[in-house]
Structures are given as C-alpha cells and as structure tokens.
C-alpha cells in the first residue's frame, strides 16, 4: 500500500504492479523535478551516494540518454553496459553478468531486454532495485508514465479522457504499459490498427478495438501513435509500409478536419510518412518534444522514489 509519499513497490517492473496512488505519486513528484530542469543549475544531490548501472541488452538511444540524464541530474554515479560490448556475446548468463556488476556494489539496475519478463526474473535473484526500461513485448513503464504525465499537462486530469493508441499493439510494450496506466487513472482507451497487429484478447484489459483510424481520431481527446516495429515482425503482418500509411497513417489534413482539437503523441522514433506525416508530427497538435523533455523528469521521480523506498527499508532494518 502507498503510505503518503512512499511508493508501494521495491522495483519498477511494470505498471501492472503499481496502484493508482503510486502512479499519481510518481507524476506529482515529477512536477517538482521538471521545475528543477528549468533552472540554470539543473542538478540536485539527491542520489549522491547511489550507484546505478544502465544495463541495455537491446539497442536504445532516447531511453538510454533520458535515463542517463535523469541519473546525472540526481547526482548518482553511473555505469553503462551495452550488449554489443559485453560478455553476453561470450555466453555469460544474465544472472552472472548482473551479479558480477553487483559485486562491485551497485544499488540500482536500469535494464532493457528483448525478452518479456527478464527484469522480473532478475528481481527474483538479486537484491538491487530494478527499473524496467523495456522488456520484450511486455512493458515499458517509464514511457507510459511520461506519456500520462504529458497527457495530464496537456489536458488535465485523465479521468474520463478518451485516449486512442494507434499502430502496432501486438509488438508494443509502450501500448501495454499505456493501457495499464491509463485504465488505472480512469481514462477510456481504444486501440486501433490492422487486426494482425492487435492481440486477439486485448479487450480483456478493458479497452475497445477499432480498425478505422478516422473514426478513432473523431472519438478521442488524445491520440498516442506508435511506431510500426518492422524489426519485430518475422511473419508478414501487413503487405507494405505504403499500404499501412494509406490505411492507418495520420496527416495534418485529417487532424485539421476534426471537430475538436486533439493532442497528438508519439513515443519516437517516428517513421515519418508511415504512421505520421511530417506535417502532422510537427503541427501544433503535437506534444512529441514535450514527451521527450518530460521523460527525464519522470525518470528522476522513479529513481528518487525507489531509492527513497529502499533507503527507508534499509533504515528500518538497521
């Protein structure tokens, strides 16, 4: 349970494990950190004694930079580890790699991995706090938190807000974390895309399904458009990017033709001309760059709250 300003979990493995109070606590804490980021001196010494390893088993540019910045802004010592330069290629197991790093006294692990559940597996075997920076097709919790933070900034309280998630839902950890987060905050959610990119049982998560992007845009207050993940598809799920763009792509004309102003989001990187045209991505509807900026503040909040939780736990044991 969330007691006041303490988060209920020891690790951030997924939004699934968080309460609505946890989510609000993270988002509220992030507001303060965002203020700090606007100051001339953007650094606080909150995690001065904390060492964090960024363990990236899968390529990442923006998430990794965002976490690194968040860690540096909080004054933490950081170690970076990427699969390409690692002992992974020498056949070392995940547990061995992490235990080797932890024996050098690391307090937190930020991990990205291509296998769903990898951080959950790791959390059963090590003591350090784990922050999931994306696991396979499961969750990307900090992305969902920064998305909700950005939505809240743009449209206020999310209770009753209509949010559409458009694109490749099947292969997207962003979609799943967003669904959990938005449902916990009381938003209504529709997922939209070709049926081959939508899990058959997605409605069991309390969302509706649409195959028509125009109707979905007309319904929603916020459209979170996802990247078409070509790299995750080893079976033909749609015929061509051209056809996808014609059927599900969003351009500025469509947004301008709507009866109400909607907020347009994208977790990046954008396939310009596929899911979003350039004129839509760069339009006034778009808060895509705000999302990036908010990412640092939200990740600072997550790292801070987990460090605080683990410290209070350690203090209570001492």
């Amino acid at each position, binding site marked *: 349970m969330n007691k006041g300003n303490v988060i209920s979990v020891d690790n951030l493995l997924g939004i699934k494990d968080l309460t609505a109070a946890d989510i609000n606590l993270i988002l509220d804490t992030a507001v303060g950190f965002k203020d700090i980021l606007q100051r001339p001196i953007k650094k606080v010494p909150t995690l001065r004694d904390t060492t964090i390893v960024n363990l990236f088993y899968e390529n990442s540019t923006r998430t990794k930079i965002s976490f690194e910045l968040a860690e540096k802004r909080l004054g933490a010592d950081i170690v970076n580890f990427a699969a390409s330069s690692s002992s992974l290629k020498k056949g070392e*197991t995940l547990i061995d790699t992490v235990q080797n790093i932890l024996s050098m006294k690391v307090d937190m692990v930020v991990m990205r991995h291509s296998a769903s*559940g990898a951080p959950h597996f790791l959390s059963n075997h090590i003591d350090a706090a784990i922050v999931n920076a994306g696991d396979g097709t499961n969750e990307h919790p900090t992305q969902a938190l920064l998305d909700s933070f950005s939505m809240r900034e743009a449209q206020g309280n999310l209770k009753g807000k209509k949010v559409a998630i458009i694109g490749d839902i099947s292969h997207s950890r962003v979609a799943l974390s967003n669904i959990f987060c938005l449902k916990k905050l009381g938003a209504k959610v529709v997922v939209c895309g070709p049926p081959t990119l939508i899990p058959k049982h997605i409605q069991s*998560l309390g969302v509706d399904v649409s195959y028509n992007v125009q109707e979905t845009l007309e319904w929603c207050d916020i459209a979170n458009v996802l990247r078409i993940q070509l790299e995750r598809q080893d079976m033909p799920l749609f015929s061509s990017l051209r056809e996808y763009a014609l059927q599900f792509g969003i351009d500025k004309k469509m947004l301008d033709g709507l009866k109400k102003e909607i907020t347009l989001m994208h977790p990046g990187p954008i396939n310009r001309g596929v899911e979003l045209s350039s004129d839509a991505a760069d339009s006034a509807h778009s808060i895509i760059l705000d999302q990036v900026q908010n990412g640092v503040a939200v990740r600072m909040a997550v790292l801070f709250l987990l460090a605080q939780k683990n410290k209070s736990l350690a203090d209570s044991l001492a």
Partner: protein
Amino acid sequence: MTILIKQATLLSPNSKHHRKKRDLYIKNGRIEKIGASLRVKATKTIEAKGLCVSNGWKDIFADFCDPGFEHKEDIQSGIATAKAGGYTGVCIIPNTEPTISSKSQVDYIIKQCAQSGVDLIPIGAVSKNIEGQQLAEMYDMSHTGAKVFSDGKKSIQSAGLLLKALQYLKTIDATLIQIPDTTSISANGQMNEGEQSTALGMTGIPAIAEHLQIQRDITLCEYAESKIHFTGISTKKSVEIINAAKKRGVNVSCSVSPYHLIYTDKNLASYDANFKIFPPLRSEQEKKYLVKALKEGKIDGIASHHTPQDIDAKKVEFAYAKEGLISLQYILPILIEAGLNAEEIAIAAQGAYKIVTGTSATIEEGAKADLTLFSLTGTSEVSKETNHSKSYNTPLQGATVKGQIIGTILGNQNNIL
C-alpha cells in the same frame, strides 16, 4: 523369493478381483494365489494403511535423454525415477542424440533395462533423424522391440509424410503418437494465447494450432485406416473432436500430461520457467474439463511428458528457457491433487499404454506379477534428496505432497520402498 501382500484393494478392471480387498501371494515372479485371507509364509510381507494394488503403471511418453544429454537424465536414473513413481513400464521418446531411428538405438535402450524392474519400450522415430523428411526404418525397429512410433516432441508437419507413415505402420499394426501442433501458427509462441498472455506481453499459442492438426491427422488416419494417438492434448475442443471421430469408428485415442490437470496459464504470472511446457498450460476452465474428461474416460490416460532439464536450461529469461518438466516420480500426488480417486488413478496411469500397445497386465492367479502398490494416505516432501531424476525442474520443489508409492513388482524384480 516369495511375497505376501496383505489386505490390499485390488484395482484391475480386467480381473474378477477388481475393487476387492484381497491377500496376494507372489512366488517366482508370478501371482500364485489370491484370497480373502491367505495363510502362507513368505520371504517378504507387505502391509500398509490404505494399500491399493493395481496393474503395473505404464507411461507412453518420457524423455530419458540418453544418449546425448546424459547430464539431464540417463537410462539408469530414468529407471530409478520410474520405480519411485510406481511405474513398471516406460515408453521412451526418440528425441535423443542420435535419435532412436535405427534398430541399434532401439537395442541400446532395451539391453540396459534388463532385470531392472522396469520395462523400457523405445519409441521409434517416424522420420529419419526426426527431420520430418524421409520415413525411418520402422519395420526394422519393430523387430528389435519398438512397439510404437513417433517423432516425439517434434510434431510431424508434412501431411504427405504422416499419411505415408500411417499407411506404412499398418503392416506391423503399430500406433503412431503425435503431439498436435500446427507450427506455422504456434511459431514464436511461449504460452497459451489468452487474457494472461495479453497481460504478460508474451506471444501466445492459440488453441487452434492444436485443433487444426488433430482434425487434419484424423482425416489422414481415417483415409489410411490406421491408428493414431494424440498426446499432450490441452483443450475441451480437442477431446470433443477426438471423441466424435472415435464414435464414427476412427482408431484414435488421446492422453493428457499431468501438469495440465493442476496448473493453468495463471501460474506463469511471475515468468517462472518451471511452468514453461509444451503444449502450454491453458485456462482454468480447460484444466477443469480435462480432469472431468479423464475421469469419464473421454481421455484414455496420462502420459508423463517427463522432460528433464538441467538448471542452466531453466534459470534464464523465460524466453530462453527450455520447455518441459520432470513428472514421472510425481504422477500419484499430481493425480490426487487433481481430484482423482484410487481407481481413477490406477486406470489413468496405464490407460494410454493399454490403448497404444494393445497390451495390459492383469491381477489373476497364474499371471506374471506386474504390480504397482500405492496408498492415497500419508504425505512426502519433494526435495533434491528424494528426487531420483538427475534434473529437478518441477514446480513441486519443496512441496509436501499427498500419497505414497509403496513399491512395484515386475516379475522377479521387486522394488518395495
């Protein structure tokens, strides 16, 4: 050597003593005498609370990993596991290295089980090296002792090859065993497709991958007028399709793995690789139905799907973990947990073997002693020390389980625990 078993409930549907409380006197590997109360002297006398004696249990689908993967299991550890689980016969799947696809491999296994107290029946591969391309030398293997044929864990995908195999096997009146799976649909799947896979962000294996192949294979079997057995079926619909075919006279039968009777896809919530099996654990509803269908005889029996995996194959990320669980030693407690009574357990533990080989033990005077002695009372701890397999990949680790295997008797060999 003489053995006297006192006041046991006999469970042998093909015997006139079925369900009766009897004394059993065994001499020189044969059942010499059965009576309400026998007054004979014996070298060994067995009495136990709630003692049941049934026809020796037989498994039709276990992996003993030998040759090729002896660090996981070998023939001797497999035999010890079988005995501890109450089994007197085990059919071994051919997914070894090299595969059981020639008579020399069949011979290698049979020679090692002589006088062990467990009959090992190698399952001959249907296709050469289990590659799914050419027919293996099944006649040659059958002359050496292979009674059933299967590509084991690898489901035969080519309809053409399966048809030829079913036709070919008619000459020797042998049954072909398939794990039903349409791999072009189940590809990359890691668990049952459903609410749970959606919530866990894992690629699901839809039940239609199983149904489609059962339907296809039944059509082929009907055309070939041959015999097929589906093992590891995991859904109500599979049972219905198979029973509908049975009704119209197709020679088809099926078995279920024990873990599908007590676990569901909900057990995967923490990504515990000890629940990673194929066919995957399905929903609570399917689990309940499978138990009911087994009790009603719509499923012909249990197949252990005993799959030893070393710790390194399981203590990794779920996606990289190997499938399968050990089970042969724990069939009794699993069936008790599933809610089967002693008679249902005795039937389930040999029913699949009876149907795929057409042979069965019986408890009659003069018959060869082929017996499993067990009790539903008492408990035991599952621990590394009591586990006979070389591997310990089971969700039952550390559990206190119900029931006791008192022992097995096969001819002159007895293993009273």
